[in-house]
């Protein structure tokens, strides 16, 4: 199996979730190691990349960070379509954001790529005193729905790298003859995808 050079596995990843839950902050922490108390609201969407070594391979995340407000919903499909992974973010100090996260999960199950790795991130884990969503509740929900679950804090960096690492581990292994390049911006995959865990 030895190959020449580094084996980058590109993986399109999208962040979804209620406004102000910290989607941009999570990305910024992961990609640049930065955190701002007052991160400018995201209008439209923003794009980032980051590589992460997992075992012998290196995953290259191509990340779309989206605007969270419900009104921007109509722009979201274009970013989650064909995505290999999604992080659905809620704010542990805000119950409504957890409700909204569940809606996103349902939508991804219905309209997203069926092999998509979906992670649920309970962000702002540093706000323990204002906690409204118990980790057990979210954990149970995640288990029932086959999601990865982690509590994270973009502020303290708790769980952030672990989150992306876990996602990278669960990404489908690269097919040696046909690398997953296609996934990146494949619009036609809507109809094409079948439940092919082991294609070819």
């Amino acid at each position, binding site marked *: 199996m030895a190959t020449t050079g580094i084996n980058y596995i590109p993986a399109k990843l999208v962040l979804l979730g209620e*406004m*102000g839950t910290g989607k941009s902050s999570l990305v910024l922490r992961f990609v640049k190691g930065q955190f*701002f108390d*007052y*991160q*400018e*609201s*995201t*209008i*439209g*969407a*923003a*794009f980032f*990349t980051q590589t992460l070594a997992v075992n012998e391979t290196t995953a290259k995340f*191509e990340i779309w960070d989206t*605007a*969270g*407000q419900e*009104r*921007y919903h*109509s*722009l979201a499909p*274009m970013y989650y379509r064909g995505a290999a992974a999604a992080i659905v973010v809620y704010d542990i100090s805000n119950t409504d954001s957890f409700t909204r996260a569940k809606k996103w999960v349902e939508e991804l199950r219905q309209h997203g790529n069926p092999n998509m790795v979906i992670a649920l991130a309970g962000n702002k884990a540093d706000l323990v005193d204002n906690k409204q969503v118990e980790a057990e509740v979210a954990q149970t929900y995640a288990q029932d729905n086959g999601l990865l679950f982690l509590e994270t804090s973009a502020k303290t960096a708790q769980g952030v790298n672990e989150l992306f690492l876990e996602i990278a581990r669960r990404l489908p292994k690269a097919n040696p003859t046909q690398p997953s390049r296609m996934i*990146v*911006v494949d*619009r036609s995959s809507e109809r094409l995808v079948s439940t092919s865990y082991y294609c070819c």
Partner: protein
Amino acid sequence: MDRKRTGVDDFEPGPIPSPRPVDRFGFVKQDQNNSSEGLTKSKPLIDKEREERRARKWRKMIGIGGSDWKHYVRRKPLVVKRRIRKGIPDCLRGLVWQLISGSRDLLLMNAGVYEQLVIYETSASELDIIRDISRTFPSHVFFQQRHGPGQRSLYNVLKAYSVYDRNVGYVQGMGFLAGLLLLYMSEEDAFWLLVALLKGAVHAPMEGLYLVGLPLVQQYLSQFEQLVKEQLPKLGQHFMQEMINPSMYASQWFITVFTYSFPFPLALRIWDVFLFEGVKIVFKVGLALLRYCENELVKLPFEKLINALRYFPQDALNPDVLLPLAYSIKVSKRLEVLTIEYGKRNGELSQPTESRNEQVEVTKQSRK
């Protein structure tokens, strides 16, 4: 004009402690900042004289408190257009914006309404607004202080609007419009200017940018894509190959009229023209940016391309370079045709002029 080079660092701000130096417009200086640094530092004396000369001309043109304005525009519309395109003197900007947008008339016709909206009404959007307040121009001294005067004004204007038009409510992005206006005028003036824009006092109403489904965003992006294909065929082709869609880079151009993540001096100059000539300047500036960078952009693969479309080089963002290029691009006629075609394709649903309600009537009358 360029006081900041020498003065601001020693300046002791009054009640709000600001440990870091700010630029001429009040933004905290950063490494990769969106301030005017580098764009206006040459020949400060000549610039200052030129600005003062222009301000004198402008004062003559608008009269005391704007009393001669309407008369002047009617007599010499082309002179006005030309002067606006050169940039409205910063000291008169707030007043002139209110005159050219039609908001001054709205304010006069609706005395007391704003106060009513702010004090007595409640809005379903209040929580959303609060969540975004400290995330709107977070690097500007006026909006930085938690619960300070800037944040309070911003909240009031946005809340008032969300009550005034409950169909729109509050939508992320509107804060940047309101924030920009608040740097140049009072809360009440900023509110009515927002009304003038969204309800279409002078130009096509903007509210479709913020209504459910963002119909006008979809329409403008589709038109923009078409214009890129027609006017910059090489780049249009390249975008297609790399599967770049304008909503990946241009949606915030339209939603916030370049107030989001663009250098402030450029945003101001665009707004001068935007308020007088309407949304076509957004198309023109967008096309000018792409044209200016076309030779670079056509070489880039997807990832680098997306980045380049977000972070344009400094020289491309210099208003005195970009705007003349934008003015030279003709879009009006094509835009009209494309609007009609788009309307037909989408069953007229997305026509901005369709969604008017009673409140628009108020606005319409004010034109006379």
